[in-house]
């Protein structure tokens, strides 16, 4: 800056440096101080504590169950042993792989449909007027009610399962992406216009680019919904996939297999979530400072 203008006198205490004032000891922060602060270590420890508590509660519930009914609530150890058995002896890897494949492929197709639709509607109000009443209404059709229809149309195929997963999330995804696009500040669009940017430049390189981190966030939230639909998709006429393994377990009252399946889906869900966050970290470096 123009340093002739704004400099403060600062060299009046340089003669002899006095002892610095003693460090101030702030009052100890209570565990439940309002809002408060949390260090990285603290949040890791607390997070782990939460997970361990959940498993501890499970284990306690198991121990409190009368012995002759304990097979209906197996212990953490029994379930993990069963999972190990499933992986090593029963080819569970193939089932997990199949489920992951169905989730990701169906979700990928849902994004291929939802992102262009959301961007189109969010950018052009008349397209929104044309499409949104219909697509918005479709959200209220429960995806599970499509199961019989898909069974008639597609039979006990992979496509039927992926179609259900697709229907379960695509309409919500459109709505979320529409919101993300509409949340782009009007001033950014106007700024681009005064730079001489055309409509397509603005749609792809301003609005979409500006909303991209939020769109990825919407995707992360919706793929979680996809995971919740997995078992419904794999309940009917499925021979493979995590859901099918669980249903087979149910037929023989193998609660440990069912709980193992639930655990697997939970872990895969968390891994998916983490992978989206990692992707965001690398794709959108400008959002790092804010997180």
């Amino acid at each position, binding site marked *: *800056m123009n340093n*002739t203008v704004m400099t403060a006198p600062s060299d009046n205490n340089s003669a002899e440096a006095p002892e610095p004032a003693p460090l101030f000891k702030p009052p100890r922060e209570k565990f439940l101080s309002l809002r408060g602060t949390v260090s990285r270590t603290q949040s890791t420890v607390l997070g782990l504590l939460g997970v361990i508590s959940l498993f501890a509660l499970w284990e306690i519930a198991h121990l409190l169950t009368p012995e002759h009914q304990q097979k209906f609530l197996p212990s953490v150890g029994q379930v993990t042993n069963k999972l190990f058995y499933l992986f090593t002896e029963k080819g569970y890897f193939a089932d997990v792989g199949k489920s992951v494949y169905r989730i990701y492929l169906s979700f990928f197709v849902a994004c291929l449909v939802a992102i262009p639709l959301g961007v189109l509607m969010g950018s052009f109000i008349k397209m929104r007027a044309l499409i949104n009443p219909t697509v918005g209404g479709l959200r209220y059709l429960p995806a599970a009610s499509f199961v019989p229809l898909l069974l008639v149309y597609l039979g006990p195929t992979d496509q039927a399962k992926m179609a259900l997963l697709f229907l379960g999330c695509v309409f919500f995804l459109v709505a979320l992406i529409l919101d993300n696009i509409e949340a782009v500040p009007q*001033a950014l669009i106007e*700024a681009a216009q*005064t730079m*001489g940017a055309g409509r397509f*430049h603005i749609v792809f390189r301003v609005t979409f680019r500006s909303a991209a981190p939020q769109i990825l966030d919407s995707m992360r939230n919706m793929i979680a919904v996809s995971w919740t639909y997995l078992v419904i998709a794999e309940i009917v006429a499925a021979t493979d996939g995590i859901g099918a393994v669980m249903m087979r377990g149910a037929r023989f009252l193998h609660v440990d297999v069912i709980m193992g399946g639930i655990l697997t889906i939970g872990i895969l869900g968390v891994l998916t979530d983490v992978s989206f966050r990692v992707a965001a970290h690398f794709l959108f470096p*400008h959002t790092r400072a804010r997180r």
Partner: protein
Amino acid sequence: MGIFQNNDNAAHHVALEAAQKEGTCPLSVNRATKEYLNGERIAVDDLSLDIKEHEVTAMIGPSGCGKTTVLRLMAGLEFPTRGNVESFGIPISGPAPERGLVFQAYTSFPWLTVIENVQHGVAIQGYSKTEQRERAEHYLKLVHLTDFANAYPDELSGGMKQRVAIARALAQDPQILLLDEPFGALDAQVTWEMEEMVVEICEDTNKTIVLVTHDIQEAIYLADRIIFFTRQPGRIKEDISMEFKKGRRFKRKEDLLSEPGYVEMEKHLYTLMREEIQGPPK
């Protein structure tokens, strides 16, 4: 003039030729009326105004006087209900890079670094990669942001963000720079620095500038001419030439304060402002 005076830009040439035609000026508002809510609210009422080339014109007035609306009409972001707005004799039909605009809101693109932001506007004008870089570096230097070229806007202070916006608007080589309360969100000390920077920019580029502000001192300091607006509906109350400055620009704001005529001008504008807010003196 610097190397970026860019005389080979075709659009620039066309407009310059047009400007030399008799009776055309960079911006001319002809009996423009802007109504909102189907005429329930009249923001601008039958307003005519010619902006002179290479002058800094400040539009000032109380809140809700339509000064920002007039600027948006000039930018082409809105259209008048009646009348028209012309630039170099050509009716304005939408936003164009010849009329660069700096908004009060922060409009740097958060996903681009500072230098990429400035380059973005240049790229749209169709400059080559090396020219883009050169122009961006030149204008970043002009706004004293060279050291922050690779930072993201979210890492900058409010004043720095507005400097990015100014550099970006200048780098697209507009004939007219429109400033819409650009320092409205900044604190007093940063505003002061920014005002002195605008004076530097005037010296360096000799741009035609239209500034919307509600700050009387700022208007006097920066402008060659002040248009004072009445409140609802927006009309021109007074068109005041800053003759007491004798065409000089003051690098340091305090040098202006001791200039003969300054105090009278400031007092006059405060009187006008009070009249608009409280009605005529009893």
